[in-house]
């Protein structure tokens, strides 16, 4: 694996970032990369700084130390190349679904005229099955539909990377399931590089190629990298019948329930933060 990682030039390289306040280190010495076309999930409990890490990748926040290199250049702020799907849908309530997407498109393509933006926004909404609701305001959409608009807005600008901050956590289980499949399909179709934060284990197994497990904060760190070897495309309805699924799930659950706690705090001697152990529970 080492050889393969060295061969692939990661699109994003997170190099030893930390976030600390006087007297408190939330997370430290976090290293990881996201390869082109790869889907990486970061799993951990609340308070380990997951959202901060995502915001740093988005350019909305800066680390206390360390750097993030994207496409060979250090991040110096937000970029259209890294689209964010926010936890709350973050749609602008005075704009219709179509106008919300068109706003993003207008930022990406300042030269486009109104008609062209409209057409492209319709097309993007069509891809998430919302063509019929384009004229509606967010207040007239259900929670799942709002998040679909958020997804359409992020994908419409053809980002090089998709950043998702627990995008489905506010939705009911049924809606969440269908949206996860939708995202899985879209990301696979587009070969989209993606980074997602979640605390939903099944979501991580369904979507991710690699799952980064974080210990509890303070002084959180990436304790382990789980390689998801389950074959793709993964279908939610049959995923749990896949050989290796339960081993994978149990491994992550065990980590979240006990090891995230017992491993928390200072790293053991000889710990190499740049290469946390990789495991393949699904074989």
């Amino acid at each position: 694996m080492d050889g393969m990682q060295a061969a692939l030039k990661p699109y994003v390289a997170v190099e030893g970032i930390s976030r600390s306040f006087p007297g408190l280190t939330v997370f430290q010495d976090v290293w990881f990369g996201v390869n082109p076309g790869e889907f990486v999930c970061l799993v951990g409990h609340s308070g380990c700084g997951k959202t901060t890490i995502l915001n740093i990748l988005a350019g909305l926040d800066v680390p206390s130390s360390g750097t993030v290199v994207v496409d060979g250049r250090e991040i110096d702020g937000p970029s259209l190349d890294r689209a964010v799907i926010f936890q709350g849908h973050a749609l602008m309530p005075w704009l219709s679904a179509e106008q919300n997407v068109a706003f993003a498109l207008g930022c990406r393509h300042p030269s486009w005229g109104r008609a062209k933006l409209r057409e492209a926004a319709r097309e993007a909404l069509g891809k998430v099955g919302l063509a019929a609701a384009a004229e509606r305001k967010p207040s007239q959409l259900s929670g799942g539909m709002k998040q679909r608009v958020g997804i359409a807005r992020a994908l419409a600008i053809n980002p090089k990377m998709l950043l998702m901050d627990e995008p489905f956590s506010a939705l009911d289980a049924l809606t969440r399931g269908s949206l996860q499949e939708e995202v899985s399909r879209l990301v696979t179709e587009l070969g989209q590089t993606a980074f997602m934060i979640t605390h939903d284990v099944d979501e991580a197994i369904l979507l991710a190629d690699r799952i980064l497990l974080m210990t509890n904060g303070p002084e959180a760190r990436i304790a382990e990298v789980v390689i998801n070897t389950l074959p793709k495309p993964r279908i939610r309805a049959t995923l749990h019948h896949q050989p290796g699924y339960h081993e994978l799930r149990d491994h992550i659950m065990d980590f979240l329930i006990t090891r995230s706690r017992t491993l928390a705090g200072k790293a053991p001697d000889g710990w190499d933060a740049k290469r946390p152990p990789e495991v393949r529970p699904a074989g």
Partner: protein
Amino acid sequence: MGAQVPFWRAALLSFLILAALLGAWEIAVKGNAGPSAPTVDPELAALLSPAAAAGGQTAMPAPSDIAVRLYELLRDPFHQRGTNDQGIGIQIAWSLWRVLAGFALAMLVAIPLGFVIGMSPLLNAALNPFIQVLRPVSPLAWMPLALYTIKDSSISSIFVIFICSVWPMLLNTAFGVASVRREWLNVARTLEAGRWRTAMRVILPAAAPTILTGMRISIGIAWLVIVAAEMLVGGTGIGYWVWNQWNNLSIADIVIAILMIGLVGLALDRLLGLLARAVAWQE
């Protein structure tokens, strides 16, 4: 409360209350005017309205007298026969012009300045003491200073309108801008929307309902203040007209002026209410 009342029932009740009030007024004024000898001093009576001089006990006109007078005034509301005899329509137009001019100037200052204050916590803190001290000052207290520096009574009343309508708009704009949701600003940042685009396409629509509330308060205050200001400076305007009719002891005209001031104030408020509804959004 709560249950919807049919419109016609409320309207009918309103009409009945109005009829009862006017009826009682009519009887109170006319009923006392018996055939007995006049108790009013003839010299005073000569100064009063013809009705009083003819032996009525009171100079207070009955609603029917007012209606007749209203008809006379409204038959030719825009006549101009010298400086002291101009139609009531002309007077209201003068007042409206001053209010709108002062209000527009206040908008030009308050909305951009409010924007800046709302975006910059430093400026907000620095300007706050000035605003807090100047805001509670009665706008009429500025009048002598305005007359002394501007040396033009009409422009001075416009200045007084400006100074009284600037505060609610300034404070509401600053508040509205400062409380724009972080997540919408983050959306704009990740889309690299730029300062101007963010201000016009995100902050302005987000703060618009709050700004409109400030404008609505301002126009109400401005319309209150113009009457007093015109009473002070004289010349033209509905406030001057009221004072003039007081000097003429034409009580009917004063009652009519009160009615007109109320109706115009209502119209101004409704106008801004419509505007507020147009920019309102719902989460």
